[in-house]
């Protein structure tokens, strides 16, 4: 085991390989508050990559309801139970990561889903965390709540799948940090399936190899966002690049949201993988649940997000989500407009800070008909 630094837990930790960050790291921000679980992302991925024989059960992208939705079944609960209660001391994680808690003879603490665990991707869908009692008031956070959690591979800085593969069949690309299974080298040992805490590596029983989300790298290499981003009708996603915290640049949209405004947080940072998909936490869900899922900065992230209507920079950048298929590595606000730009400053997209509102008269005098308001 090597000693590496994980900024998400603000301490050194043990990892199977020495720290080796890519030249640039693919990253994404998902705004949970805007997700409606339409599963368009799921289908965009499914039809693009996993419509083959042996891939029937695979959802490289899935959206599950929390707290009672899972794919595969109880993926997070099982691992949290295996890991046991752990502590944060402020923003420093004082517990054990999955690498530090690895049982004897293994490299990562993990578990392997059974076939049946994948069979119910919609289990728990729209199930509330509690029942609404008579006299309940409507407040934030809600007394009874659920939220939608869209998930892809996190293309982690310290991937557990990569660490666990005994024959080095999984690699992290130097040019973009995307984590891939070498399909010519994999022998289907399924160590990665067991090790990935997010359960985003899958075994193909007909080819006998493991497969996973590839961040649509053929698109990303051309400056285009992955399919699940480009097809998201809720415009909850933004793909780009993330810097190390000390190198954060305010004109980089991901850096701004993650490092500068700290409004987007990693999923289960305590696992120690430094995942690179960041979530704007749902404002209405129970804080202890969110604390467990997104770490100790969740209160601050929610407060910042709730102030966005009075924060034109933050609101403007959030409005840039889903407005172009192009990857937007730079952004700036020009008064009431937000501009997404290429690395060289070339304008890629321009959106208004606030969408104009047009109110039509209820009666159309030209055609002499009453107008009907349709959503």
């Amino acid at each position, binding site marked *: 085991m090597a000693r590496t630094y994980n900024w998400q837990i603000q301490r050194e930790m043990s990892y199977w390989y020495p720290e080796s960050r890519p030249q640039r790291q693919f990253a994404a921000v998902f705004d949970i508050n805007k997700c409606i679980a339409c599963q368009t992302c799921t289908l965009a991925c499914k039809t693009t990559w996993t419509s083959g024989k042996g891939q029937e059960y695979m959802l490289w992208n899935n959206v599950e309801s929390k707290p009672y939705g899972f794919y595969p079944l109880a993926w997070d609960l099982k691992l949290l139970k295996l890991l046991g209660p752990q502590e944060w001391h402020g923003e420093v994680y004082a517990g054990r990561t999955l690498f530090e808690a690895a049982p004897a003879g293994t490299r990562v603490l993990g578990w392997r889903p059974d076939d049946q665990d*994948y069979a119910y991707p919609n289990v728990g869908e729209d199930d509330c965390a509690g029942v609404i009692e008579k006299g309940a008031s409507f407040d934030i956070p809600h007394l009874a709540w659920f939220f939608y959690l869209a998930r892809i591979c996190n293309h982690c800085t310290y991937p557990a799948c990569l660490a666990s593969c*005994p*024959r080095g069949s999984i690699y992290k690309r130097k040019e973009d940090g995307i984590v891939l299974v070498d399909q010519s080298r994999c022998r289907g040992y399924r160590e990665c*399936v067991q090790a990935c805490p997010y359960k985003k590596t899958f*075994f193909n029983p*007909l080819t006998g190899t493991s497969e996973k989300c590839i961040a649509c790298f053929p698109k990303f290499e051309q400056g285009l966002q992955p399919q699940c981003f480009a097809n998201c009708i809720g415009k909850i996603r933004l793909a780009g690049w993330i810097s190390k915290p000390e190198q954060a640049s305010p004109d980089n949209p991901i850096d701004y949201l993650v490092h500068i405004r700290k409004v987007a947080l990693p999923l289960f940072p305590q696992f120690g993988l430094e995942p690179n998909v960041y979530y704007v936490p749902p404002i209405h869900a129970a804080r202890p649940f969110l604390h467990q899922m997104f770490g100790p900065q969740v209160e601050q992230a929610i407060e910042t997000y709730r102030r966005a209507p009075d924060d034109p920079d933050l609101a403007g950048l959030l409005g840039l989500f889903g407005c172009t298929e192009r990857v937007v590595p730079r952004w700036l606000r020009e008064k009431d407009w937000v501009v997404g730009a290429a690395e060289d400053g070339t304008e890629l997209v321009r959106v208004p800070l606030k969408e104009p509102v047009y109110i039509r008269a209820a009666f159309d005098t030209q055609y002499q008909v009453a107008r009907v308001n349709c959503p």
Partner: protein
Amino acid sequence: MRDIRHLLLLSLSIALLASSACRKPAPPPPTEVVLFSAADVPLDPSHTAWQGALEFTAALIPQDLVEPRQLTPSTTAVRVRALTNGVDAAFRLEWTDPTANDLPGAARFSDACAVQLPSKIEATVPAPQMGEAGGAVEIVYWNAAWQAVVAGRSDSIKELYPNAAIDHYPFEAPSLQQSPASQQAMTTRYAPARAVGNPVAGPRTTAVQDLIAEGPGTITSAPATASRGQGVRTAAGWAVVIVRPLPKGLAANAPAQVAFAVWEGAHEEVGARKMRTDWIPLALRGNP
């Protein structure tokens, strides 16, 4: 009364001594795997020719040197017979396994076995566990799931999950049926391991694969698989024949080493999680 008792004891002792003098002493168990000469090497594990080869029982130990380690033992021994026709070397492996595991799945593992020899027959042998840098080993790997496909199980999810419901595969769309080439191209695109020619990915025509390794974690496919193999279920477990080219340099006066490994699917054994032997002397000899 006492005299009669003495007489009876004396008679019994004489009878026992006489009996033991007539019985042939049991031959000592073989200390090496012997490749006996045979006109042909049968692929069928139940072929009578195998009765002509002396059986060697190899003790299996857990692979506990490299991660992921096998910490709890499973299969304890593999019984080996070996034949050669001067061109090929054939090994018949038989072991006890009450469960037949030949269905692949996320958490379903296949029974398997392997035969390992040094790439070069020389006085210095590489490390017994997958060889070492500069000391390559040749491995022939047999897998029960592959055997089932070779025996006729179709390449369909329905064979693995009979109750699976599949709406549609895009490459089976009616519009593509007039163009088998386009259909095949799209089918391959959705099977990336096949698209890049990974030999484990199929389509499968043999139950074995030739592999080369120079230490743990380095195993790689041989350029082509020249070996053959066939496994059958027995009343107690598996009997598998692996036929590979006779190692160059192996001669009566130049013995070699051989090692074996067995994977118990029910014990979730795969890859490094296995039961293995140490090197075992391998000798070439005439008929027993």
